[in-house]
């Protein structure tokens, strides 16, 4: 298989000083050693990841799901927070690319002995690894780590800040289902205040030209969110009505959402996505969820398993996206190289 996907052409129309339309092909080149968030990527760079993921998805469809792209490279999954889906997905992505994978979690490691994130990162670098995939409960942890080491850092979720690969796989799934997100109405529903998935989706989708609405109970709408270019509502029916797709977030009643809403059942009644509610929506509305689902809280079991749900496809696409990301960050054309 050909792996020359570091470049992606993009047509650009500009008006010349004389008023003529000039079409130029802009070629995106991946130059970043890290993936920290979608805020920091251009439209072209997002396109590059999506293009590459498409190719890698073909690999996943083969009987032998493995390519030698990252042979000899080592990927460390450094997880300060519990995670099943994201960690396994990154591990599989790395293994499908023939990289060596090491999983490091807080429990039983030097982190518990009080080692700082920067020290842990520098030690992993000294151990001659190539990529650190980091999941951390503090916003900005990935950015901090990336400044401290020269090896690649991929953000697998930092606090409430960003979860870029999740948003990328969401967008990839939307592209598969709907062709292109440009001009589409996409609603993100749930605990916006504490959601890194929401923030990454907002950056990615708005950069690609989607109309984004966020919907949450008042207490879970963070200050100034409208300045990021989204519509804001607390009315679930309004959020669903014109939507081409909805991305339903997990309500973390065990943590952040507690206190913002009286109870799980109350939340379900007011904001839960049910078949009843979807009757008022577009027939082909795409229903997404980053998982793990609280059935009967943010979404009914019927909707989760229903015809509009693409939740499991998202999971499969996640591997392709992470393969693309691991490939690009390790093959970045470094500006100083």
């Amino acid at each position: 298989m050909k792996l020359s996907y570091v470049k992606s052409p993009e047509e650009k129309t500009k008006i010349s000083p004389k008023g003529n339309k000039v079409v130029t092909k802009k070629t995106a080149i991946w130059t970043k050693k890290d993936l920290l968030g979608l805020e920091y990527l251009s439209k072209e760079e997002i396109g590059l990841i999506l293009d590459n993921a498409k190719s890698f998805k073909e690999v996943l469809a083969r009987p032998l799901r493995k390519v030698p792209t990252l042979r000899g490279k080592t990927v460390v999954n450094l997880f300060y927070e519990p995670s099943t889906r994201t960690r396994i997905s990154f591990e599989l992505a790395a293994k499908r690319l023939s990289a060596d994978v090491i999983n490091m979690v807080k429990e039983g490691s030097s982190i518990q002995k009080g080692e700082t994130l920067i020290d842990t990162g520098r030690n992993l670098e000294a151990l001659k690894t190539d990529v650190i995939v980091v999941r951390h409960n503090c916003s900005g942890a990935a950015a901090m780590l990336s400044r401290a080491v020269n090896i690649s850092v991929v953000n697998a979720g930092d606090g409430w800040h960003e979860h870029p690969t999740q948003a990328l796989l969401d967008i990839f799934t939307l592209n598969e289902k709907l062709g292109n997100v440009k001009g589409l109405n996409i609603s993100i529903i749930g605990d916006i205040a504490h959601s890194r998935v929401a923030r990454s989706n907002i950056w990615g989708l708005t950069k690609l030209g989607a109309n984004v609405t966020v919907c949450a109970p008042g207490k879970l709408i963070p200050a100034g969110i409208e300045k990021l270019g989204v519509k804001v509502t607390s009315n679930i029916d309004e959020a669903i009505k014109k939507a081409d797709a909805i991305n339903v977030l997990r309500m973390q009643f065990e943590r952040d959402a507690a206190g913002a809403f009286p109870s799980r059942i109350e939340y379900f009644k007011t904001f839960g996505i049910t078949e009843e509610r979807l009757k008022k929506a577009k027939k082909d509305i795409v229903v997404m969820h980053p998982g793990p689902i609280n059935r009967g809280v943010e979404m009914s079991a019927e909707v989760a398993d229903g015809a509009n749900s693409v939740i499991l496809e998202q999971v499969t696409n996640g591997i392709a996206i992470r393969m693309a990301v691991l490939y690009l960050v390790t093959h970045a054309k470094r500006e100083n190289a």
Partner: protein
Amino acid sequence: MIIKNGYIIDPLNKREGVFDILISGSKIKKVAKNIQEKGEEIIDAKNKIVAPGLIDMHVHLREPGREDIETVARGTRAAISGGITSVCSMPNTLPPIDDAKIVKHLNNIIKKEALANVFVVGAITSGRSGRKLVDMANMKKEGAIALSDDGSSVQDEHVMFEAVKKAKENDILLISHCENKNISKNGVVNEGMIATKLGLRGIPKRAEYEFIERDINLAKKAKTKIHIAHVSCKESVNIIRKAKKDGINITTESAPHYFSLDESACVTYDTRTKMNPPLRSVEDIEAIKEGLKDGTLDAIASDHAPHGKHEKEIEFDFAAFGIIGLETSLSLAIMNLIDGKKIPWKKLIELMSTNPAGILGLKQKGNLSEESDADIVIIDPEKKWTYTKDSILSKSKNSPFIGWTLKGLATDAVVGGKIVMKNRKII
């Protein structure tokens, strides 16, 4: 000693112009044109500004207990380098300065180590816990100049009211850090779009201005004075302006970072931009400048807060609040207030010397009257310089201004009639 040919700015005596100053012992003897005295050491201050030494009433010298990040010796050298000849040292030390014995202990260190004048601020409550009031009378006797639980507020209004009344009885100044913890909670940056974008917990401005309102009311009820520390936002400035108009006896300060940097400085998660109160919006910066210009805010104080590398080079959520400021305070004020806001030099010297002396009741300081203390700063107002990590005299380096080219610099300083800095060289 004679300081010759300098452009004197002495707001208290309404004196401005080229004069000489004769110093004898620790006092100013004479301020006049062209003083000719034989055998006196001459300091030439031609083309420079000569002003009463700057007074920074909000400094964390970290002694006792945290000598690893700042000391009286190093902190006062940093102060002198910034043209500051007197500082107030805050009591959130280890142990906190909440007892006459600790005041005495710290004053002994100061006597031995300090290059600038240091006035000890004691805590309001024992252990800075916000519960039991300290023994104000004895702490004052040992030399505490004011009381503050700085770093946190006395959360309980009843305790604060008792403190206000007792401070009045003892005729000692209360300095209030205004922050309602029920509102600020675990916030780390200003609430708003930047916090939202960064996914960091926001600190609403309400946490500050509601407690300013509370303390203004307490001062009014007790018919006494209160000083409000580190004012950072527009709403607070408006509340203070109104209170002063209503004749309530309050004084206030803001810090250079609140008129030099806005919250957008936090976007890279640089923990050197993490402070409490947090950096606010562009609009707030303007309000702070306006407040300093029109007298709503009385003083500029740095809130010099040294922290170790290990306390700052960690996750933003876990990093310590605060930045160092003694060495950049004057330059930032010159750049942002004189150049940026067109406030006159006289006003700047009021904000940085005359007014803090007045608030603290230091009659011999903050002015160039005959028989006042010979605490004097000589400033090169046009000097451009770059603030580098290596140039920092404080023991800690946590400043977001490192790498900035600044304007205006103290070149010489006299404390109690002794030259402590000559031509930028600390003696």
